[in-house]
């Protein structure tokens, strides 16, 4: 075992950023492979840690940071966070490889007419990419509220720059919108964190349970949660998401949607739900309703979309509704299912966004109206898209099935024995049909039906774009068949934390 593995996981992407920058300045698009190297290393580290965590141990590293302001710098990998870490690391590793071809296309498109485009574009892209990944990983590992907040905001800035510099359409305005919405959420979160500090006298996450006994606990919890809900883009706070996810460069969308917004859910679980479950359960009913609305609303709006990336963005909102629903149940199975769904949604949605990217590069349009019958021309992509769709719609043997039934089992667990609550839970479960409906409709519109005249010449994507997706699909299937990998560490942890 390497010393301080988590610190390495955090620092290696950060420290390799300048190197990757310099390399990409010379090597252009091949910078993507350079970015993959440190991420592979951290992935291996995490897998080594996973071995430890699966044995029931959690790995904590603690460093002195600023004793004057009551700060320590801790990094934690336990049965919950290790899965988030692995998901983020894996997705970012694969997406970095995927980016090689995609960003080449993107720059060609952007600099149309100019013969040469600058290699520093690649350098900037991969440097920001690494920072973004480090931000996400740090957020998940943090054990201290301020440290957490630091990384929470740190993942915002590079992603904003990535949208602003490499996005589509009105990317500048959308980038700002994305930044400001989540930033407003984050500052409200900050008030909550600070209030929590004044109750407990400590910024440690492990000290948070003490907040629950404070009379102001509901207010504090709500302040913290609002911040996370904005990140998760639950109904009412979701407006930035379709824009940001649709107009971000597709590899970034493929990280934003699967990896980042779910961190909101993870954080809400980690900071509020688990330590203050009594407070959280006060809001259980409202949150369940809210989650249901989010689920249905996201689904309905997805139906209304023609742009395939916007469609996926709305479906992410809907999927966040599922996660939210699981959390709102405040039951072991529900919360574990929600966290599991983070992983399975991550896998599925990453595949789908990358498929959208493939469509953009190979077909040259994002409008589903202009697509159709593409399964003919790109069978592999179609198959991958199907696996992605099944993963988010919860069709076995994908991981989505496992996570969704855990979520719903938890929902019923918490609502029974009351009859009307059971009916409500049943209604919420029925609404999942909508997911099947809109995802399949997307598949149908894009891949089925007669092939339009103009798309006869479309070719299958190169292996550098499809190979990462095949890996993701395989993992989704493996987790679907053998969910114990996750549940064995997740369920007991959540169970013991919920009490």
């Amino acid at each position, binding site marked *: 075992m390497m010393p301080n593995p988590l610190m390495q996981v955090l620092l290696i992407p950060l420290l390799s950023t300048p190197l990757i920058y310099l390399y990409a300045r010379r090597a252009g698009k091949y910078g993507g492979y350079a970015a993959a190297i440190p991420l592979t290393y951290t992935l291996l580290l995490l897998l080594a840690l996973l071995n430890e965590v699966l044995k029931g141990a959690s790995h904590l590293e603690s460093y002195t*940071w*600023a*004793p*004057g*302001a009551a700060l320590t710098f801790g990094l934690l990998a336990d049965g919950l966070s290790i899965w988030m870490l692995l998901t983020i690391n894996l997705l970012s590793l694969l997406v970095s490889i995927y980016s090689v071809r995609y960003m080449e296309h993107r720059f060609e498109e952007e600099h149309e007419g100019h013969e040469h485009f600058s290699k520093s574009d690649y350098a900037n892209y991969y440097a920001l990419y690494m920072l973004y990944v480090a931000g996400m990983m740090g957020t998940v590992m943090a054990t201290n509220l*301020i440290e957490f*907040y*630091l*990384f*929470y*905001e*740190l993942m*915002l*800035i590079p992603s*904003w*720059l990535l949208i*602003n*510099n490499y996005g589509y359409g009105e990317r*500048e305005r959308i*980038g*700002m919108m994305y*930044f*400001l919405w989540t*930033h*407003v959420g984050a*500052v*409200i979160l*900050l*008030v909550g964190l*600070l*209030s929590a*500090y*004044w109750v407990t006298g400590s910024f440690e996450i492990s000290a948070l349970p003490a907040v629950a006994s404070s009379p102001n606990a509901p207010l504090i919890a709500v302040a913290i949660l609002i911040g996370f809900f904005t990140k998760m883009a639950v109904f009412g706070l979701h407006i930035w998401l379709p824009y940001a996810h649709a107009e971000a460069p597709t590899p970034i969308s493929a990280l934003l949607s699967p990896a980042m917004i779910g961190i909101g859910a993870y954080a809400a679980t980690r900071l509020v739900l688990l330590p203050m479950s009594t407070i959280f359960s006060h809001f259980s009913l409202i949150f369940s309703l809210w989650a249901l609305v989010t689920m249905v609303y996201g689904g309905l709006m997805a139906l209304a979309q023609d742009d395939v990336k916007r469609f996926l963005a709305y479906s992410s909102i809907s999927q966040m509704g599922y996660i939210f629903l699981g959390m709102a149940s405040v039951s072991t199975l529900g919360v574990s299912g929600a966290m599991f769904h983070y992983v399975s949604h991550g896998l599925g949605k990453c595949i789908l966004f990358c498929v959208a990217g493939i469509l953009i590069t190979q077909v040259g349009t994002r409008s589903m109206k202009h697509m159709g019958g593409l399964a003919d021309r790109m069978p592999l992509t179609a198959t991958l898209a199907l696996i992605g769709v099944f993963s988010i719609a919860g069709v076995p043997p994908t991981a989505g099935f496992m996570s969704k039934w855990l979520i719903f089992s938890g929902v019923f667990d918490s609502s029974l024995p009351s009859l009307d609550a059971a009916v409500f839970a049943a209604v919420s479960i029925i609404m999942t049909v909508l997911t099947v409906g809109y995802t399949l409709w997307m598949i149908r519109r894009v891949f089925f039906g007669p092939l339009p005249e103009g798309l006869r010449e479309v070719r299958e994507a190169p292996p550098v774009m499809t190979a990462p997706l095949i890996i993701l699909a395989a993992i989704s299937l493996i987790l679907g068949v053998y969910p114990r990998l996750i549940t064995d560490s997740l369920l007991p942890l959540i169970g013991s934390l919920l009490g």
Partner: protein
Amino acid sequence: MVMISPLSASFLPLPLAVLLLGGGTLPLIGLLAEKTGLRRLRELWAIAFSALNLISIYLLYQELRASPGRVIVSSLLGSPPLAGCFEIDTLGVYMAGCVALLGFLAVVYSYHYMEEESRLTEFYTLVLLMMAGMTGVALAGDFFTLFVFWEMMGISSYVLVAFLKYRWGPIEAGFKYLIMSATGSAFLLLSMSLIYGMSGTLNFAYLSASLRGVEPSPWLLLLLATLIVGFGVKSAIVPFHTWLPDAHPEAPGPISALLSGIVIETGLYALMRVTYLTFTPSVYRSVFAALAVITMTVANIMALLQNDLKRLLAYSSISQIGYMLIGLSTGTAYGLMGSLLHILNHSLMKGLAFLAAGNITHQTGMRDIEKLRGVGRMMPYTMLSLSISLLGLGGVPATNGFISKFILFSSAIGAGMPILAVAGVLNSALSMAYYLRVMKNFISTPEGEFEAEEAPALMVAVNLLMALLILLLGLWPQPAIRYADAASRMLVEGLGRYIQAVVGR
């Protein structure tokens, strides 16, 4: 407790002596430089003296640290109650240190920035004198000394704002600044007379001993109001801020950095010191809280749609003053620590922002954000440092701005004023909008209307150094926190000791 220090045994504290000496000799050096043709001599002279200043502050600090809670009193002719005197404590040294740091950086920056201008002897003299003024304010032990240095700082800054007198802008701005600021000084004088009338002394220790904690009478409240106006104009608390958006942008780049970065904070520091010595926090708390909210909100709204980069930064300075007022209004050591930390951090961030803006105006001659689209792609290092400073100003973690803001908001919650914290964070989010707008425009693809090259290496080096400091203090705030903590404790917990150090002699 009171010891005569080798560093301050002379009638002036060492930093002040250094600056005054530097400022005083600069005209001669300037003359010499003109004669010999060694034109860079005066720049180097100024740099040398500001560096010396920094070193002497460090020495002074080391001396103070040797025995915690110590107050060094050095008086001009005679004993404290009657004569003007300096009372050097950690708080004063902290503030003087902020001045020295930013002053040094600004002077170094000026080396290239001002090279095309004439009358540089005058310029550097004034800069050094302005720094001397601020250092004097920071170290002053009585109100009268404070006033004298206050005016020194003021007068130098009036001239510096209007330094580019061949343009209409600086003149207009300078005149407005002068009138308003002098009005503030008149109010300050008036408040001095009131204090004098009430306590018979102007020495901080004595007046604190006699005024602090007494039942607030109308006279005392009148005094407080007058003080707020007196210091408020200089520190640009809304609604006394109207001069600032004119004066700061019109000054030359390094002067803007100094003005925004430290001059207005000196006003705030003086306000903090005097009000805290004179009143218990319960008297002024709500007023300051209200002023804080008004200041932040108005300034942020005004900054939202500014097209002039430096004007936008000027408004942002006003809003930052609002944040610092939060700490002041809590009246706790923790809150004051936040304010002090923010003074330091803001001096770095805003200093950097203005210096980076200086780079841009220096290279392009433009200040309009819309017209400057894509400038960041041409000047990457400037852009990098500007972005770091702007993010810091917006309170993004990993920058020092976040640390101080979070302490400020946290102190507001700790002092039972969560509304203030909420107002603060919302304003902070609002302010992000215009910082982002600047960054967004600058990093966008250029529209090819102008070409620009990266600024000279020295200027960029200063920028990058400051950016590095911002990140360093953001990620490892411990040293800054320790100093600010010691400073604020000096004010809050060391009050009795402070009084005793002077009175009990």
